């Protein structure tokens, strides 16, 4: 009996420590019962960049908070992290809830959707005033690279976000592997940049190193090594069979002259000739050229790449810093765009510029706009470059000393600007619902390609599979656009 009592008290003591550590004293109780904050202006900022996945994000937000709050003593910035996969649901819930954010980062996947739902405050009036600001603080259209300013406005010219980054899908190459191969292979050596004195620069790949899909196929074949028993020792490429879906497929589609959807978001267009060819190309890389490691759900492309087991993977240009952080400093990798397919023309990819938006329920628009201007202005870009190694979406960013230093420190950044400029507009309409319809079909095509080609699969052909996916995606678009019409009618903007 005594022992039990003692254990109980010990447990209570431990819990009290947990409470105190979590700051669950007055602050939390206050938040339970009152809405009024103690300080002046509380600016709630949400983002999916999380210190839990990369500590550099934590340092970035600290730096932003300190600098901004020092310059704006009346504002207290409060951050919250919401994971990418749950962002739409969480934001929607927040909008009908008690404590919606004032400013949040929105992926281009959802920004248009948020705008149609009426969750975003249009920024045209604020941007008009901003024209008169000094260039480093100006965030109007002409300050940005054109691809960054595609997703943040509606058909009627309403601007609802300001880009804070520019990203693109790219091919990331393991230069350790390439350099090793280049020692006895001229073709691989040719992929690297040649200096004026004709020596090879093994820290940089040429932006247009890959000239065609066939070239890509032959390069990855050369980079694939199998052991005597047939097990894969080193893979030329890696394809994500589970959940990679449309996101993995669309840059290849783009490089073959196709598009995933139309600009207005009414129709899916990926099942045409270009799309079928791209899908077949990817499936063949896995099943016939055999340049990829076996599909595994629990092991991601990034993990395999970071362990040095694959020579090339598809990732966003944003992932460089994560590779560096997870490998504790390895940066001998480089990025290129996607080579043109048979129906394509020139190096291509898909680009997007995630943006900061102000929510319609924001009650301190002035403070929010000051924050947006800071983060999307030149100074914010430079902070992101210094701490996170990001390239910015602003034109003046690429003329700064900081950018040139960043490129010297992180050689993998060299091609990033050109890759972003080569990109087409990333798909952006009702992504979650479309993925829900399309991704399982792409999964089936990749996982069962041999049977489908032999006519014994769940679909008679790849064409049939993609066409069904396109039909279903069109169903999603149809229902979505009907709902948009209802929203607009409800708000009197129809």
């Amino acid at each position, binding site marked *: 009996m005594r022992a*039990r009592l003692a*254990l109980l008290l010990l*447990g209570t003591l431990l*819990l009290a420590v*947990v*409470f105190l*550590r*979590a*700051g*669950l004293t007055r602050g*939390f109780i206050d*938040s*339970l019962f009152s809405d009024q904050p103690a300080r002046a202006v509380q600016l709630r900022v949400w983002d999916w960049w*999380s*210190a*839990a*996945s*990369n*500590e550099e994000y*934590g340092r970035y937000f600290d730096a932003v908070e300190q600098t901004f709050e020092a310059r704006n003593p009346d504002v207290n910035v409060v951050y*919250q*992290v*919401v*994971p*990418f*996969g*749950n962002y739409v*649901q*969480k*934001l929607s*819930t*927040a909008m*009908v*809830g*008690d*404590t919606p954010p004032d400013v949040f980062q929105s992926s281009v996947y959802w920004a248009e959707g948020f705008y149609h739902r009426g969750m975003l405050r249009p920024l045209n009036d604020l941007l008009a005033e901003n024209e008169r600001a000094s260039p480093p603080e100006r965030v109007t259209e002409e300050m940005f690279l054109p691809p960054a300013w595609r997703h943040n406005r509606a058909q009627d010219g309403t601007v609802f976000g300001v880009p804070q980054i520019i990203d693109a899908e790219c091919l990331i190459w393991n230069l350790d592997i390439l350099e090793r191969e280049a020692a006895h292979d001229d073709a691989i050596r040719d992929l690297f940049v040649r200096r004026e004195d004709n020596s090879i620069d093994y820290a940089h790949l040429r932006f247009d190193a890959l000239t065609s899909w066939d070239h890509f196929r032959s390069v990855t074949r050369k980079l694939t090594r199998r052991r005597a028993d047939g097990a894969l020792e080193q893979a030329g490429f890696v394809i994500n069979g589970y959940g990679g879906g449309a996101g993995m497929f669309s840059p290849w589609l783009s490089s073959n002259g196709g598009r995933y959807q139309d600009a207005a978001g009414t129709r899916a267009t990926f099942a045409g000739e270009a799309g079928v060819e791209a899908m077949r190309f990817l499936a063949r890389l896995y099943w016939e050229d055999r340049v990829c490691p076996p599909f595994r759900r*629990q092991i*991601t492309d*990034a*993990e395999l790449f*970071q*362990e040095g087991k694959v020579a090339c993977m598809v990732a966003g240009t944003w992932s460089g810093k*994560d590779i560096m952080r*997870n490998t*504790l400093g390895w940066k001998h990798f480089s990025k290129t765009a996607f080579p043109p397919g048979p129906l394509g023309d020139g190096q291509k990819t898909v680009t997007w510029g995630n943006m900061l938006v102000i929510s319609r329920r924001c009650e301190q628009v002035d403070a929010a706009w000051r924050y947006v201007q800071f983060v999307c202005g030149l100074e914010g870009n430079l902070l992101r470059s210094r701490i996170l190694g990001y390239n910015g979406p602003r034109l003046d960013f690429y003329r700064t000393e900081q950018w040139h230093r960043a490129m010297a420190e992180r050689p993998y950044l060299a091609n990033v600007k050109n890759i972003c400029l080569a990109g087409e507009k990333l798909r952006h309409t009702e992504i979650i619902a479309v993925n829900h319809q399309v991704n399982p079909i792409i999964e089936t095509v990749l996982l069962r390609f041999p049977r489908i080609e032999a006519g014994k699969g769940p679909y008679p052909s790849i064409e049939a599979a993609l066409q069904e996916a396109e039909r279903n995606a069109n169903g999603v678009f149809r229902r979505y656009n009907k709902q948009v019409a209802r929203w607009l009618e409800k708000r009197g903007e129809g």
Partner: protein
Amino acid sequence: MSRGSRLALVVMILGAMVMVYPYAYMLGSSFKTRKEFAEDRGSLIPARYQPGEILADLRGEPSARDWPGADWPFYQNYVDSIRYGRVDRFLANSFIYAVLITGVQLFLNILAAYAFARMRFPGRDLLFALLLSTMIVPPAVLLVPNFLVIRDLGLVDTLWGILLPSFAGAFGVFLLRQAFLNIPGELEQAARIDGCGSWGILWNVVLPLSKPALITLGLFTFMGAWNMFEWPLVVLSNQDYYPLTVGLSYFSAETSSDWPRIFAASVMGAAPLILLFLFAQRYLVGGIRLSGLNT
């Protein structure tokens, strides 16, 4: 011991190992560094503690002890998950919700069960049947409807929004009524003669005598509240309010998850209930028998 029961013992031990293995896996992986986990996902012991690696290191050969992070203490992931992952906050939230839900449910259920067991009033049996019939609707079906109700009440993403639907529960009324009915009527007669009203009888006579049932119900409710996942997932967006279950699902949703850290947070999430269970086994197991037999 007969041969039959010896065989039974062996099989049970094997089965117990199967039951315990995932916990051992979780615990062992929570001590690993990121690289150790990536290199060998199946081992229960982190590479840097394995005898083979330690020997290799002593002999001066390259080993797992040269890997990045090998010099970290074994509890590094626990510290990190609190520092970067706010796990302490999530644990505290889970605890608060569980305590509040248990307390309120117990209170409401005691009142209603006493009325159904001991009071006579028109429509009593009909109302009881009506209450029990609400158990027909399975929770998965109620997820969306409850959200609509909470939304109409304007309680989305609030503390009340999480707790209110969890206060509902006919099962506790059923269980307690059963327990109250088992108390001999003479004791209450005696109390009434002494001048006690219904309220007094409830608190002074009935409750002390039905302690086992109360503790059982309290424990079940606490565990159910600690483990709740779908409802907070759906109704919350403010991270300050997340219980541990939702917080964990968030870590794993990151694109490059730090799995050992997630396992450390999982251990911290599973341990409290296991400790509680060890304490209060008797009541929990007894409660299951009660519910199993009386349906």
